[in-house]
């Protein structure tokens, strides 16, 4: 019976091996997240004594979440994070798409060199420029301002966005653009159409851009400690001598929610065969 069942499911040894690897990787990826969520609902002592156990009637508590509720600035931290991430995402996608469109669809002198120049930004971490960037922000009066953070993240995110999007935009057949132009489209119409057709790429870039921004501790710490984001704010629960683990875990759990929502939203854009039927 076991044999026939296996045949019916069609699991070959190689497939089983692949699945073992994937399941193992999923476990490694999910386990810490699951631990954070589970322990955010437990009393302080059980977090240390039985960190792997699910909360029971005795150990269950919402103390961490209550702390977050009582600390009036938690809402502000969340708001700051949303504004900074949202603003950066918007600017990276908008400016990145426009630059990528120009690089991919217009023929002009030096477009290749310009593309390479932008790509260099992918390889150089923006933190290397912290000192001079802080100087610039100070000069512009943007320290301790969310706008300052948004500008830094936009600069950091643009190279990858331009690189990925221009590769996708090049894939959109020239005939489609020509057809649209003959139909009466101007550059903006063509841009809108190509962005529309490269939606999966935009979604990928959005996910790649938003997660590091949301999680970042460095720039809020050095450039805008006065307007803490969620990541920076949560650090206040971690003291040198006493750490409020309930609150830290609760904050981390809440911090995941917006990212999960956005991830689901963008992930739905990965529609396969979006170009189906355009040609031939």
């Amino acid at each position, binding site marked *: 019976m076991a044999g026939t069942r296996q045949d019916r499911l069609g699991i070959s040894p190689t497939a089983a091996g692949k699945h073992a690897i994937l399941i193992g990787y999923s476990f490694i990826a999910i386990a810490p997240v699951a631990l954070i969520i589970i322990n955010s609902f437990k009393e302080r002592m059980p977090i240390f004594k039985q960190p792997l156990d699910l909360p029971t009637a005795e150990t269950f508590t919402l103390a961490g979440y209550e702390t977050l509720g009582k600390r009036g600035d938690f809402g502000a931290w969340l708001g700051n994070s949303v504004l900074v991430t949202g603003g950066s995402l918007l600017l990276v996608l908008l400016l990145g798409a426009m630059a990528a469109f120009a690089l991919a669809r217009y023929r002009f002198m030096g477009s290749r060199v310009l593309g390479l120049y932008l790509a260099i930004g992918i390889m150089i971490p923006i933190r290397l420029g912290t000192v001079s960037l802080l100087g610039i922000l100070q000069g512009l009066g943007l320290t301790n301002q969310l706008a300052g953070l948004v500008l830094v993240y936009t600069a950091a995110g643009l190279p990858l966005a331009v690189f990925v999007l221009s590769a996708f935009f090049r894939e959109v*057949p020239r*005939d*489609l653009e*020509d*057809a*649209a*132009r*003959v*139909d*009466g*489209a*101007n550059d903006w*119409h063509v841009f809108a*159409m190509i962005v*529309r*057709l490269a939606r999966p790429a935009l979604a990928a870039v959005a996910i790649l851009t938003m997660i590091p921004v949301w999680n970042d501790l460095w720039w809020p710490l050095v450039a805008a400690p006065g307007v803490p984001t969620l990541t920076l704010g949560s650090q206040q629960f971690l003291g040198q001598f006493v750490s409020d683990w309930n609150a830290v875990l609760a904050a981390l759990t809440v911090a995941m929610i917006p990212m999960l929502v956005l991830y689901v939203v963008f992930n739905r854009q990965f529609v396969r*065969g*979006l*170009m*189906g*039927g*355009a*040609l*031939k």
Partner: protein
Amino acid sequence: MATVTFDHVWKKFGDVVAVNDLNLEIQDGEFMVLVGPSGCGKTTSLRMIAGLEEISDGSLRIGDRVVNNVPPKDRDIAMVFQSYALYPHMTVRDNLAFGLKLRKTPKADIDKRVQEAAAMLSLENLLNRKPRELSGGQRQRVALGRAIVREPAVFLMDEPLSNLDAKLRVQTRAEIARLHQRLKVTTVYVTHDQVEAMTMGQRIAVMSEARLQQVGTPQSLYDHPANRFVAGFIGSPSMNFMNVTASGTGDSVVLRNDAIEVTLPEPFRGRLPASGNVVLGIRPEHLAMSGASAAGTLKGGADVVEYLGNEELIHVNAAGQDIVAVIGSEHRIRPGDQLNLQVPLEKVHLFDPESGVSLSPMAGQAAG
């Protein structure tokens, strides 16, 4: 509706000349076919009319207006692409309506024109589908419909049938011809297929190596090709060519090589080059079976016989040259048979061996 005029138009891509001094006037309401082998400049010429390629030199007019620097959207043209280039994210209805919407046509008017075009092309039931849900033939009709709804002054078609299977191609060919008769819009149609050109074109412009070779009606190109290229390109199977030498004088000039001996047809008298060497051209369908090895025949052995039903395509080895003849299949010719093929003098074409230009006084007469 409008005329389209190329006036000494050049197109260069870097050092490569894609269109070399093109002069061509397409009449109002005419169905003009640009035909030639790939890379001959026909598609580039079409794209210049569309405004999708810049013109390097010369001037292009649509109607009385020089359009060299007019963007595509202001040229009042519609184009059907080889790849169809349907907008994949839009329904058939939106594909058809897109151009009208961009031109701010009133909603009611758009609906009416989309309905009309859909009815004309039997697309009514497909209006809410996306291109990926359509078959190749349906997509092709949507591409045609997108051009029709615009009611442009000129239709441009770039090999619109090349992605269809053979049967659908014949159907659609007739459909496009019917549409043209009905709408009477100036149409420029690009193809590499001479059969399409011959069956659809009111006039045909044959291009090769960036140059216009000859313009004329299908009949005039077939009967009076201006040069060896046009003679070989138009007609299927292709015209046979043989090098022959002229000897004798006056009324008794004879053209001969090892396989053939014919008297010089009357219209060519006094038109031969001094060397006496010419290229003789004869179409496969003009060769006929002949009993005896008389004068005016072509001798050779049948190499390959391709049976087509009512007729046979016979490859004849005539003194080392491959000659094709189309013969009624009732002759039951077998490979290895020795044949005498009658060469009708009035169907013989002669070309200059150097330039390839026709020696006929009629050549290119009907060119417009």
